[in-house]
């Protein structure tokens, strides 16, 4: 009976539009910071993986399996509640979600960088080495710039995945847009409007970044 009496009241959303934008902004910057860290870890890890030394490549492989195999939600509560309890290091909820995104994301970025690095023809490296470039310069000037073009589209997809994943931060009370929607829902009981607004914002953000990745991919294409 209550359901039949449901009155749509979109003013709940329109009146609080700045709050929703501010909430979405939190999701966005947390995803950006987490993604940047994931890229840094992933690049280092991929270099270890492709180093050819088993002592380095085996731990790197195991790291990827674990990071990709543990659900984001489990990772988040493990870091926020579990690790804090055992080590006494209490992360703020912001730190916890950023670390979670960085760790989970780095599992994916490692594989992407590895694929990018191994797609570069060996001849390129041999040629650079034989004209006297050091190993560091060979990577810095020859291998990485070429690998970069290859990794941009999949990295873009990883970023979109992390942006979606970032919305889980509401469960540890980071005031993002989902947290705001939950708050409004329990105080005003307007679940449809607030969650539709959140879904709408997320669709717009994700489609925007997907389009951006597509454009970047076309620009970077050599042929």
């Amino acid at each position, binding site marked *: 009976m209550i359901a039949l009496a449901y009155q749509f009241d979109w003013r709940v959303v329109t009146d609080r539009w700045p709050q929703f934008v501010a909430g979405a902004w939190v999701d966005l910057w947390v995803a950006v910071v987490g993604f940047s860290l994931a890229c840094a870890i992933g690049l280092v890890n991929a270099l270890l993986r492709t180093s050819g030394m088993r002592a380095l490549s085996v731990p790197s492989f195991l790291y990827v399996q674990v990071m990709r*195999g*543990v*659900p984001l939600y489990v990772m988040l509560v*493990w870091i926020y509640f*579990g690790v804090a309890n*055992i080590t006494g290091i209490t992360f703020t909820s912001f730190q916890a979600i950023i670390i979670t995104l960085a760790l989970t994301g780095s599992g994916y970025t490692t594989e992407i960088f590895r694929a990018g690095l191994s797609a570069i023809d060996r001849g390129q490296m041999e040629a650079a080495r034989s004209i006297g470039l050091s190993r560091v310069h060979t990577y810095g000037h020859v291998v990485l710039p070429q690998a970069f073009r290859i990794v941009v589209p999949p990295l873009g997809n990883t970023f979109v995945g992390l942006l*979606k994943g970032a919305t889980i931060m509401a469960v540890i009370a980071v005031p993002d847009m989902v947290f705001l929607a939950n708050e409004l829902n329990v105080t005003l009981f307007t679940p449809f409007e*607030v969650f539709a607004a959140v879904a709408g914002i997320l*669709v717009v953000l994700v489609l925007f970044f997907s389009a951006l990745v597509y454009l970047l991919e076309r620009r970077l294409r050599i042929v």
Partner: protein
Amino acid sequence: MTALLLAYSYDWSVIPRSAAFLERGLLVTIRIALLSVAFSLVLGLVVALIRMVPGPIGLIGFLYIQVFRALSLYVYILFIYFGIAAAIGLNLDPIPAGVVSLTLLNSAYMAEIYRSAIQAIDPGQREAARSLGLGGIGTFVNVVFPQAWRIALPSLVNQFTDIIKDSSVVALIGVPDLMYQTIERVSFYHRPFEFYTTVAGIYLVMVVIVAQLAARLERRLQRHLA
């Protein structure tokens, strides 16, 4: 406070004591994941076929994929379980709500996997089948799909690992899955580290098993090509 932290000692014995709860949760997780993967395999194929129809019908498939891939599972679950329930009175139980959310999200991903596999089939195959007198449907069922299926299967199984992982989020609406049981036990014993580490391990094992299965399947399906 410091004394309390220093005094923290691991007590893993809570895990075997909670084994029955975790097992019950694990069975729910497996059931949800299997149901979702079955539904999204079917729905994904339908969406992929709609997507490949030229004209406005194809556009519907395209929009479905774009929109349904763009939402996170958490937002889906909140919207379906609370939003739609309140607005139109469709009161789903937690488990169906979770399965519907997982299916909507993953069918969009699977549609793209199917599409790329179907498009990877040489057009000559289709032309040859048509010129032998097979109809449009006969060509698809007997010639194109069996080949596309081999290409798509490893990626589809990999998608299954994502479903297993994502399914942990359904605990938030009270589905008594592995994650939910774990959270319950954590608040009972106050042993977050032990429980969350164990549950991470269980998910990891499930994902690794499924991923290995995918890798083995891929080799098996490619055998005739070698």
